[in-house]
């Protein structure tokens, strides 16, 4: 018997997954021997006026003060778990990746159309349609109750990124299919028109995945909220361009064609952007970014970055190495994009289990910009959308702040190796 065996107490009573039936045994009958309108609760209350439980009206200011005082400052010992880790499995990052490829390819198709390369545009549309095709499958496979996928479309709820994302997926797929259909039916103008309008939907499909992660309580994701969307868009553009490029090359797009050049520029630019944004973000994250450095997510993250670097290097060296080197670079980008997605999702799960970071985030002291901006008002979450005083000036100075933060982060990391480590160990827990 291992030291901490779990005990499986096979359920004798009870069903998983929800409250017992909410149906009255007899629709119109009352509950016997219980008084209605919560009268029993009032009657049986122990600390009535004959006690000194809560005798006098309170000084509300003192009550509020006590609450704020106990919630301010350093958190001290944290007895987790504080939040639950996301339950998403391997399908989700893959879906993100496919969605990104589809979006990126669609952007490319529209650009091709604009540049007058309609043949490439039509192929790009098909790439996009093929890339979006597995997305619903993956999304459904990840559901706890796949049969209820359509419940996503039961309502239209702009507040929920996932709901909008589901609608966007449906809309995008539909429009993409329509555009490809138009292509096949020989209606290029219609296809172009549909393609143009689908950019609006596609822009959401390609970016909402970052929003989806950012709108959670997971420190890594929440505190990257301004970066995640752009990073994911970069990945989408790069992978979409790379996929399209490889398809076009396979279809015979000759070397030297401007589309091929443009695609190379897009994937390189986007990937470089992604690398820069990621590094910048990683450094400003401070303690919250630890989960990107350790364990499997850390390895994936490093692999992705190396993939990007290799791709960039190959592209720079394509003159001596020949055009095939560029194709390898495209493959590197595709692989790196996939690794980035897995790294981000996986690191979020680790981050959610890092109780101390969660606690520190709630106390408004986790990333470096928290400290530089003096922390949010009232120790609120730094990332709250309420603009602090002087938000305009802050916005103007934000890049500078991030730069300084990064420098500071590097110094700190260089000195101690960790940032505000978990009681000296530095590593976030990998299991609970």
């Amino acid at each position, binding site marked *: 018997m291992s*030291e*901490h065996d779990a*005990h499986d*107490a*096979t*359920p*004798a*009573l009870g069903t998983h997954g929800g409250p017992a039936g909410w149906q009255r045994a007899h629709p119109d009958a009352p509950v016997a021997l219980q008084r209605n309108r919560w009268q029993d609760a009032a009657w049986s209350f*122990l*600390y009535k006026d*004959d*006690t*000194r*439980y809560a005798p006098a009206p309170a000084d509300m200011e003192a009550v509020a003060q006590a609450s704020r005082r106990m919630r301010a400052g350093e958190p001290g010992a944290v007895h987790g778990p504080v939040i639950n880790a996301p339950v998403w499995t391997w399908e989700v990052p893959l879906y993100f990746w496919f969605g990104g490829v589809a979006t990126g390819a669609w952007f490319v198709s529209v650009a091709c159309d604009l540049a007058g390369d309609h043949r490439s545009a039509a192929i790009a549309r098909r790439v996009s349609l093929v890339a979006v095709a597995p997305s619903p499958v993956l999304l459904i496979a990840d559901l706890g109750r796949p049969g209820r996928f359509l419940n996503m479309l039961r309502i239209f709820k702009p507040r929920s990124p996932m709901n909008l994302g589901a609608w966007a997926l449906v809309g995008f797929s539909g429009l993409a299919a329509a555009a490809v259909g138009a292509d096949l039916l020989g209606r290029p103008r219609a296809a172009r028109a549909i393609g143009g309008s689908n950019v609006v939907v596609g822009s959401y499909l390609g970016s909402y995945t970052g929003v989806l992660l950012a709108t959670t309580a997971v420190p890594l994701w929440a505190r990257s909220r301004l970066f995640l969307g752009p990073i994911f868009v970069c990945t989408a553009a790069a992978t979409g361009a790379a996929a399209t490029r490889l398809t076009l090359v396979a279809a015979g797009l000759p070397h030297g064609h401007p589309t091929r050049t443009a695609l190379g520029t897009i994937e390189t630019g986007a990937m470089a952007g992604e690398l820069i944004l990621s590094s910048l973000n990683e450094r400003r994250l401070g303690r919250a970014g630890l989960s990107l450095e350790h364990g499997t997510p850390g390895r994936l993250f490093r692999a992705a970055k190396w993939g990007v670097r290799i791709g960039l290097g190959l592209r720079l060296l394509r003159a001596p190495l020949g055009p095939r080197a560029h194709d390898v670079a495209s493959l590197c980008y595709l692989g790196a994009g996939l690794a980035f997605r897995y790294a981000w999702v996986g690191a979020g799960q680790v981050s959610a289990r890092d109780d101390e970071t969660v606690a520190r985030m709630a106390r408004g002291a986790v990333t470096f910009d928290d400290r530089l901006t003096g922390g949010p008002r009232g120790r609120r979450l730094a990332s709250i959308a309420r603009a602090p005083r002087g938000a305009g000036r802050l916005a103007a100075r934000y890049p500078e702040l991030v730069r300084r933060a990064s420098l500071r982060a590097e110094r700190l990391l260089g000195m101690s190796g960790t940032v505000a480590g978990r009681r000296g160990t530095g590593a976030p827990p990998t299991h609970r």
Partner: protein
Amino acid sequence: MPGLGASLGRGGATDFLQALQHADCILIEGSNMAEAHPVGFRWVMKAKERGAKVIHVDPRFGRTSQLADLHVPIRAGTDIAFLGGLIRHVIESEAYFREYVVNYTNAPTILREDFQDTDDLGGVFSGFDPETATYDTTTWSYAGADGGTDGSEQTHSSQAADQHTGAGMDVGAAQRDDTLRHPRCVFQVLRRHFARYTPQMVQRVCGISPEEFAAVADALVQNSGRERTTTLCYAVGWTQHTAGVQVIRAASILQLLLGNIGRPGGGIMALRGHASIQGSTDIPTLFDILPGYLSMPHARAGGVSLQDHIDAGARQRGWWSYFDSYLVSLLKAWFGDAATADNEFGFGHLPKLTGNHAHFATMLRAIDGGLDGLFVMGQNPAVGSQHAGLQRRALASLKWLVVRDLSEIETATFWRDSPEIESGELRTQDIGTEVFLMPAAAHVEKEGTFTNTQRLLQWHDKALEPPGDARSELWFMHHLARRVRAHYAGSASKRDWPIRNLTWDYPEHGEIREPDAEAVAREINGYDVAGGAPLPDFTTLRSDGSTACGCWIYSGYFRDGVNQARRRDPGDIGAPGGWVSPEWGWAWPLNRRVLYNRASADPDGRPWSERKRYIWWDEQQSRWTGYDVPDFPVDKRPDYEASRDALAMEAISGDDPFIMMPDGRAWLFAPTGLLDGPLPTHYEPCESPLDNLIHPDFHMNPAAIKWQRPENPYHATGDPRYPIVATSFRLTEHHTAGAMSRNLPWLAELQPEMFAELDPALAADRGIEDGGWMIVETARGEIEARAKVTPRIRPLKIDGRVVHQICLPWHWGFTGEVRGDITNDLGALSGEPNVGIQESKAFSCDVRAGRRTRPSTAKLADARLDRPVRPDEDDPPAEYPSQIT
């Protein structure tokens, strides 16, 4: 509970749970109330929020301590020393409630000249016979009162025979000194007796600092008196000791000195651990008493007649003067028309006792091959009884065993997976015990009454049919009786007379032929033999055979043919006194909720204070009235003066609130009724790492029962191999031996494993890690447990040395959803002299890190090789230690 019985008159909690809310101070000691009685603790919390001070004295900082205002750690098994210190404090600081003490207790009564206290004799009272380790109690009597109990006839096992009765003592001739100055008056004897129990001594014995002691003492004193009351709450942490009864006695003395008995928010709250454990002593499944605390007859030369038994049991004065009516009515209930005055109502056919036939003695008999069969109903001795390893070996020696329970408990499967099988000491194929495991009905599948801790009888209705072949015990006994009676129907043998003539005509109903529980209840309540009408209460019982009553103290619970225990009207809780809710269920005796409540009024019948108003004399109506049923003749004027030669209830004056006692007073000093001394004295537990500092010559209670047998080895005092004090406790999440909780996944998951709580210093010393494994070892066995290293357990500094304590829950066994080692494998059989209760709340042990490498009880495997074969006589030898080494 003779501790309460010998002090106050009745062996039941003097109080009820809702009354706790009116306490001004609550001392919880020997109980882990918040964990073992969470709903009862509701009323402690209410009291606390009403301003009461809650004090918890316990070795372990538990969930009760967390809610208490003050937690005082104490060394397990030293409660008498602590309570004795409090008694001394109350006396010496003159903080006692003088008017109450003088009028309501026997403090002024003058004792015989030849009484000698422990101080005079170095640790024992006069009358001690070292040969038999028993007392002759003659000298403990009041001066002038002739007779007294014939101590020479007492044995350990006759326990209850005289404990409530004080038979033969003529208290009418007793003298009193109301100034309390007479050197031989009880008060002065008490003062001298407890003079040794100074705060310094308390510190040396219990490990309680003088500051902590003073904090408790001040709280008790400040919250007692006319205006305020203090309640004591206890459970088996006080009783399961070789001096357990005397702990309760000490608590009674303290409460009487403070004037807290019989008053709202006062009293002594005995917290029972099983739904109807009070009921199972009222209607006893105990060997030495008959229903209603009537003593079982004892064999004597020339036989014992009904009159002999009545003479031995009845008192001339007080309520026990009606002993004969109760006994005869019981015999009429059992033997019906066959019971006549001519045949002594069948009394002669009752089996007679000659010694100790309690649980442990019986199991030892079984080991020796002297017992054929055993019925176990709703109990799990293979886990829950002291020295469980010995219990299981006893089960293996039976010819047959009938176990009735809801699930497959350890007692039923000992032949398959007990530690003894694992160790190879026993082989399944060699165990000849035939086992019947009978499925039992649960509480919602049958109807009947529980008697809860506050002596409250509550009827539970039947909601469901039991599943399959599950049946109630009522069904089982009824249909067993049917078969047995059929077998003996034609017998002419004298020995079969009781079976042939047993009244047994309970109507059956339903498909499964369930006997009618209400019919049984009516018999318990009693009826008029001629007309069959239910009796209104026990005052109508007669000794001429015209009434029948199965349990006199329950008489009245079917008053007017209405099931009083089934009443469910809480009343208006908010009205003055409405919190008593007298229409909810029915409390014995006569639906009195606070016992001895005459004492809530002063001798003139006025409430001691407006704040503590409860029962008072209403001059206009010329009767006692109040919120409760008066525990007093309702029309006896407070100024009634009993003449010296009055008998029965006539002898109880209008200001004598303790009507069960022959002198109408509570007994600070118990001249009769106890076998180990008239006053509580500190003795060390049977197994202790420390010497008795108060009476060095007598380590443990000299009258306690010990079984010196190879399978029951004891630790010597101060044995360096066993330097640690262990105590056991209950968790909220489990129930007793776990049969009703370990199988329930909802509960099992809350506390999945056996653990031991120990202090960080001990853990550091032994290299034990929190959450890791550790072994607890005694001479009987070794068990493994998870270590819960916690600052909540504190080492104590006792007389210059550090004493570590460990605390063990005892809910796990080898079957069920969650399993673990059995705490009771550690303990030895021992017995309190009055009731024979075991000492499971304090024993010595050792701990080490790691897991055990052999089954828990393997170390005793060899001890049994030289056991005797079937004994030639009935009683196993109980050897009494005269000197403790």
